[in-house]
Every structure is written in C-alpha cells, then in structure tokens.
C-alpha cells in the first residue's frame, strides 16, 4: 500500500521541534503506517499525549488529538474511550510521562485492560526539560540530576506492564521501523490494553552526557543491546543481563476487556432496576 504521510500530517505545523536525528520521527512514521494498514476511518481515531518531546507528536497529526498534562494522558484517554467505546484511542507518551509522573495511571490502565493502545518512547531520559533522570535511566548513567552517575535502579517498562496486567506487550526500537510498524499494528488490532515500548535515541540530552552524542552511534548502541524474543527464550539469565528482548513479549486474547466487563455491570444494574 502506498504510504502518503502528508494525508496524516498538519504540514502547516512544520518544521517540527524535534532535534535532527531524533528517534521520535521514526516512531511517528511507523505509527502512521500501522494506522494506515488497519484501514480505520481516520476520524474514528483519537491520539492522546501528555507532555514532553514525544508528546508533541499529536500536534503534527491531522486527526482528533488531545495534548494533555504531564503524566495524565491515559486518564484523559480512559474518559474518551468510555464515552466512545466504538472508536479507537491511541496514546503516545515518553518514559517519564508514562512511568514517572504518570506511573500510577500506567499500572491501573494495565490492570483494567481497557482497549487503548499505548506507545511509550523510551529514550532513558527527560528529553524536553533538559536531560534529568527518568525511571528508565540506566544505573551509572549521567544526567542533569545525576552528574556523578545515576544511583536509582531503572524500571523494565515492558515487564512492569505485563506484571500489572496489560494483555499485549511488545518492545521495538528505532533501529527497525518495519518491525516497529508490525508491533504497533498488532497493538491496534488487539482488544485490550496494548503497550508498545520503543527503545529510542535522545542523543541531545542522554547521548551528549554519556559519550553517545551522535544519533547513529546511539541508535547502533541501542540496537546492539537488543535481542529477538525467540532467541532470548533460548538464552540464560546471565546471557540476557543488560539485553532487551524485542518483539511480541506477551499476548493474552482471553482476558475480558474493561468496557465489555463494565457493560455487564450496566446490564445487571438495569435488570435490577426494572424488577
């Protein structure tokens, strides 16, 4: 299918604010290709974001978009989805937005298994505010708030989401836009809470402080740490240390979606009232 990005973009809002070489562009393109191939009417999709470099994406999309507050995108999205359960809701969030200030909403969205697709751009740092530690900054890495190296252990976002009850969890990276598109499409088609964690490069804020200021070098560094899930399954714990399995990590089509369960409660209540 020929891809016409311009059909999805607010070209009058260009040039965008992202640094040259930033991975967010690759991710937005993969998301748009995935959206085009699921062939939903464009007006049936709402894209929601919080605040951050990543969260600026909806500003450039020519669709229903809501640019909300830092960390709370999922709560706005939940409101939209419950009001219009027949429509499609996609959230795009940075690692800080999703897992620091918004961490509470992340785990509870997973727990409910509401039919929302969440793309988390994990660049290991707060990009927009100038490179402070995020909950995914690796141990020992330098950041504006850890000039001597980070002492706070990082989250594994995908494992966190799986543990909290998300029914589709995948991890991709900016080194493979094709794989990423496939993983996002899987998330869009999944009925339930779908999380796609994307390992991305913020060479400006993370790379610069950690001797990886060249975007290509940083992307290569990220790719070198990834290992395909199938291969990972055959590896020992020791071999997997410091590695990030990529691909579809978890899928459960059995668990009931939140609104489906909620509808039953409504029916019960209505039946009781009629009696």
């Amino acid at each position, binding site marked *: 299918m020929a891809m016409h990005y311009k059909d999805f973009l607010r070209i009058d809002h260009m040039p965008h604010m992202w640094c040259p070489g930033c991975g967010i562009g690759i991710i937005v393109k993969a998301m748009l290709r995935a959206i085009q191939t699921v062939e939903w009417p464009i007006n049936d999709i709402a894209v929601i974001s919080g*605040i951050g470099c990543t969260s600026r994406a909806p500003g450039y999309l020519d669709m229903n978009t809501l*640019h909300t*507050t*830092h*960390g709370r995108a999922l709560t706005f999205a939940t409101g939209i989805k419950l009001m219009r359960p027949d429509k499609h809701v996609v959230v795009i969030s940075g690692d800080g937005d999703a897992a*620091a*200030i918004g*961490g509470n909403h992340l785990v509870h969205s997973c727990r409910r298994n509401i039919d929302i697709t969440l793309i988390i751009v994990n660049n290991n740092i*707060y990009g*927009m*505010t*100038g490179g*402070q*530690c995020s*909950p995914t900054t690796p141990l020992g890495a330098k950041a*504006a*708030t*850890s*000039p*001597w190296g980070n002492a*706070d252990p990082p989250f594994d976002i995908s494992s966190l989401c799986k543990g909290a009850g998300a029914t589709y969890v995948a991890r991709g990276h900016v080194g493979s836009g094709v794989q990423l598109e496939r993983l996002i499409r899987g998330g869009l088609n999944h009925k339930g809470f779908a999380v796609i964690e994307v390992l991305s490069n913020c060479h400006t804020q993370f790379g610069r402080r950690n001797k990886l200021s060249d975007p290509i070098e940083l992307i290569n560094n990220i790719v070198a740490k990834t290992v395909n899930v199938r291969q990972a399954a055959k590896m020992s714990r020791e071999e997997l240390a410091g590695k990030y399995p990529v691909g579809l990590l978890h899928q459960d089509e059995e668990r009931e979606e939140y609104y489906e369960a909620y509808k039953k409660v409504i029916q019960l209540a209505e039946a009781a009232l009629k009696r």
Partner: protein
Amino acid sequence: MQKILTGNESAAWGAMCAMAQVVSAYPITPQTTIIEELANLVAKGMLKAEFIKVESEHSAMAGCIGAQAAGARTFTATSAQGLALMHEMLHWAALGRLPVVMANVNRAMAPGWSIWTDQNDSLAQRDTGWLQYYCESNQEVLDTVIQAYKVAEAVDLPVMLVLDAFFLSHTYEAVDIPGQERTLGYLPPYKPSIYLDVNEPHAFGGIVPQDVYMEFRYKMQLAMDQALEEADKADEEFNRMFGRGYGLIERYHSDDAETILVTAGTATSTARVVIDDLRARGRSVGLLKIRLFRPFPAQLVREALAGCRRVAVLDRNICVGMGGIFAQEIRSALYHQPPERRPHIHGYIVGLGGRDIIPEVIEQIADDAEKRTVDDGRMIWIGLKD
C-alpha cells in the same frame, strides 16, 4: 562577591547562602535551571544538601514537608502546572506550619500551552496560607530567598517567592552574593519549635474535631498578622547588614502624584522608566510596587494611595469572571477609607501569556486612566487583537 547570574541562578545562590539542607524538586520549564544550579553548587562542594529526585511536584513538596518535619531547612522550586499539581501539598505545608521556602517562576497556565510569564499560577495559590513575594530583579530574588527563611522560620509559615519567566528567570544581571558566613550572621541555623524528634516524639497531621479546627486556622491568621511585622523587620535588618532593602511595597514618585500605577514583578522596572519620562513631560504620575502580596500590606497600600485621584492597576493575571487580582485586593483594602482618601481604581488586564509589557503599553494605560472620569469597576483589557 559579585557574579553575573540569571534570575534562576540567583534563586539557587540564595538557597546556597541560606544553607538549605534538603532540596526536593521536579524539573519544569522555566524553573529547571534553578535546580541545575543547585546541583552544580552541591557538586562543587559549596552547598551541603541532600537532593531528592522525585516523580512529580506533588512528591517534591511532600519531600520538603517530610524533611522539614524532621527538622531540616528545605528548598524547592517550580512553575505553573507544577505549582498547580502541588496544590494539596501547599495546604499541607501551611497548615502543618512548616516554614518551607520555594521559588515559583511565574508561567501561564495551560491549555493552550505556554511557557511564558503571567501571574495566574501563583495567584491561584493565594488562599493556601503561604506568604508570597513578587520580585523585580535578580538581586531581589537572591535577597528575598534569604529574607524568606528569616520570616518563615519566625512565624512557622511557608514562603513562596515569585519571579517572571524568562524576563527574570533567564536574563543576566550583576548580583552581589553575601555568602554563607555573612548570611549566617543574619539568618541563624534553623531551630524548629517542634519536629519529629527521637528524644521527644510528636505526632503530626492528626484528625482534628469540629471544636478545635477553627482555632488552628485562627492561629494561622495570627501568624500571618505577625508575618507582616516580621517581613518588615527582616527587610530592615537585611538593609542594615547588607545595604539593600526593598520594603514590603515601594513608592516611586507617588507622594504628590495624581495618578498612581500599580505593578508587581518585572513590569515595575519598565514602569519606572515610563514614570520618569512622563514626569519629565510634566505629568503627575507615580508608581506603587507591590512586593509582598501575602500577607497583604493593606495599611501601607492605603497610605500610599490616600492622596491621589486615580489608581491604574496593571494585572498580569485574570480572575475570569471578576477581573485582575491585584485590582480586587486594592479595591477591598481601600473600601473603608473615607471618600476623600479613596481614589478611583481602574483595573487593567495586560501581558498575559508572556505578551511583552513595553513602555508604550504602560504609557497607554496612564493615558487611559487620566481620561476616565468615573470609577465603574470594569476590567479594561489592553492590547487585545480583534
């Protein structure tokens, strides 16, 4: 020692001079460089403080509250959305009578998203029981941080000092830094009256029944009354020791003026230039700068405005449905004055979302006020586009 500092760096150096022991903060534009400068000062060994990395502003203030309750002098900084998110904790710090000091960089609230200055973020926290200072220069920011601790710790109430986004936070000025040793002569180490003490345990935050809650609030009010005196004393003592004083308000050519403009924050500096210029052209205009907003120095404001015919209040904020907040406060402060001491009060909404308040705008306001013959209490919007 003199240094060229931004407004944000001045706030950090103020906290360094005051020897804050715990800093708990979350980054937000345009506050970020306050925290980064504090991190630098700690990294260079110039400040011995613990830095708590938190997940949001709500936790940042909670961290300060915890540390302060454990007996430490604390500092934090934020802006706009961050301050709004702190709201619950602002009440906690004030009702818990914990003298936390915080710098807030005035930034407009979203949506639509803006990182530029206006006063709605801090003024929305007016009723939380925090003292509020509005600063005009980088020197005043640094000095006010030090004064803030003095006043806060004297009355056991938290203090917020406010500086304009970018106009102050990111512009450089030569700033005199008293240093820790000289500051110590002015501000002794923090000695809390009660705190979480292993030798003498206390319980904070208990449930308060209907028959005593009101008394807690009344005591806060008494503390606020006392804060007015303490703020005045703190400024005078600061002036004696360091040769700089600001007053709680400042009157500039206002004694004999027929028209007095009222400002807070950086618009004050611009207004001074305009007043000089208009005076040179024979116009009877003056200026009143409000530095301390909470507690409101009502008596000083009454005295400053008693002799003039009209007051033009520049509000870089809007209480939608009522008007500019400084104008409202001044109106209510003057309400009980006899008619001959009660000038007309015209409220101007100006410079929201960082729109520049240039000299021409201030002159336009002075011109407009001089032409008005009735005091109809309506808000007047300046520079609106069609």
